[in-house]
């Protein structure tokens, strides 16, 4: 692997969670997100020789991601965006401002997921692996869609609190 490629790889590895989050914030469909994110990855590599290393890499990659989102939607000739251009730009700025510590704290997510009870884990599997929305999950479990929506919100809150606790503990240990 040559040095430029190694550098690109290293920087992308660090930036990918944020760029993936940005794409997820503006492209609802899971499959479409994966397509767009891979196109972003390819575009980052193809244009890495034009990256100005005095600028933050994440911001540069997010700029490419914004372009790729627009290109993708133009190809589809369908508006799958949920936000207007100004809001998309605001969100790109917001993602760029997320600190590396906050991104690294997601490393505790795997451990926090193991702390979920069986029912919560089942809900997560249906939502995130099977890609069911609350109505579909409600049908599968025999509860109301509103109950499912509330449960998913509680699970996300629980995971966020778990991550924050572990981050605090890890920060205190260093």
């Amino acid at each position, binding site marked *: 692997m040559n040095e430029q490629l190694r550098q690109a790889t290293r920087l992308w590895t660090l930036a990918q969670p*944020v760029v993936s989050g940005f794409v*997820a914030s503006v492209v609802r469909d899971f499959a479409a997100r994966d397509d767009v994110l891979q196109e972003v990855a390819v575009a980052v590599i193809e244009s890495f020789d034009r990256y100005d290393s005095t600028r933050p890499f994440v911001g540069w990659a997010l700029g490419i991601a914004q372009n790729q989102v627009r290109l993708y939607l133009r190809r589809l000739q369908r508006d799958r965006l949920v936000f207007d251009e100004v809001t998309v730009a605001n969100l790109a700025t917001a993602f760029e401002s997320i600190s590396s510590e906050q991104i690294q704290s997601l490393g505790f997510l*795997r451990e926090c997921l193991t702390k979920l009870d069986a029912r919560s884990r089942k809900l997560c599997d249906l939502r995130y692996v099977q890609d069911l929305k609350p109505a579909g999950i409600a049908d599968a479990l025999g509860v109301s869609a509103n109950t499912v929506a509330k449960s998913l919100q509680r699970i996300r809150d629980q995971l966020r609190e778990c991550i924050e606790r572990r981050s605090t503990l890890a920060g205190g240990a260093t």
Partner: protein
Amino acid sequence: MIHDPSEQISRALDDLLTDAEQRELTEWISQSPDHARQYALAVLLHDGIGSELRGQAALEESTSAPRPENVPASPRRRRWGRWFAVSLSLIVLGLLMWKGVSGTPASAAVELNRLIAANLSESDRTFRITVEEVESEPGRRARAPEPGRPPKPPMQGAVLHVRAGGQFVLIRRTEDGQAFVTGSNALTSWAVRPDGPVRVSRDLNRFNRDVPGHEYAMPLDDLQACLRSLRDAYEVRFPDPVIEGDFKQLLAIRGRKQPGPSQVEITYRPASRLIHELRFVGMPYGPERLTLRMTLETGSDLGPDYFTHSAHHSPDREVIEE
């Protein structure tokens, strides 16, 4: 006006907002950078949960199915979403270095690049090595064992654990069933024999020479290097007829003047593109040519210390640094 932003954000993540609620959320996000940041952090977590769980599911599926036959067999086709497991942690590397190997159809080339991206995983993986055939090459001398040391155990049935960054643990069995373990944690390489001192070296290649493929930049302990070598030096194509079903295949055919195995079959999950098996035909290995398979068994986290030598011997073993 939004009364509970957290709830509205959560409903947005689950596609539950009405048009009016979506407009409210858009307006709220635009009101201040803090609002946009709050939304961004919620999406980051949501996306992270999805990536983690889909990655776990994809790895479990890759290790649970039986090895496919080498003839097309497609009794049914399962519908899948486009889960990318942990695959998007890196990018398609080949486009910067792609040399346009002659004879490689563009679609196969693109697919191989996607495999490379999909398998740039931070997850640990465990493979079983099965040697199908051993051919002796006339005129080539057998590998001499290192002075004062017994011959090394065979590769048949060996277990190879790999982790990103060139870390590996190769476990072979002697004739009497004892483990002979070599490995590297990317800081040192090491060898733990059934008896005698543990040997450790700062030369990361010191103890990986027994891993097939190293001589030809196609080491089994570095999946990425393997795939990139195939991309750069082999003709890659889909088998004819194309295999459909739970697995897909790519074939990599060696050019006439190229060293290395004559053919490599890459079997992978079509949805996640995670590699299930690599089959090397005619892999040079010392004086012999092996046909061997490397089959994915598990994708479980092996823990922080597994790739250091101390995880594989008792604390009272003598350790010699070479």
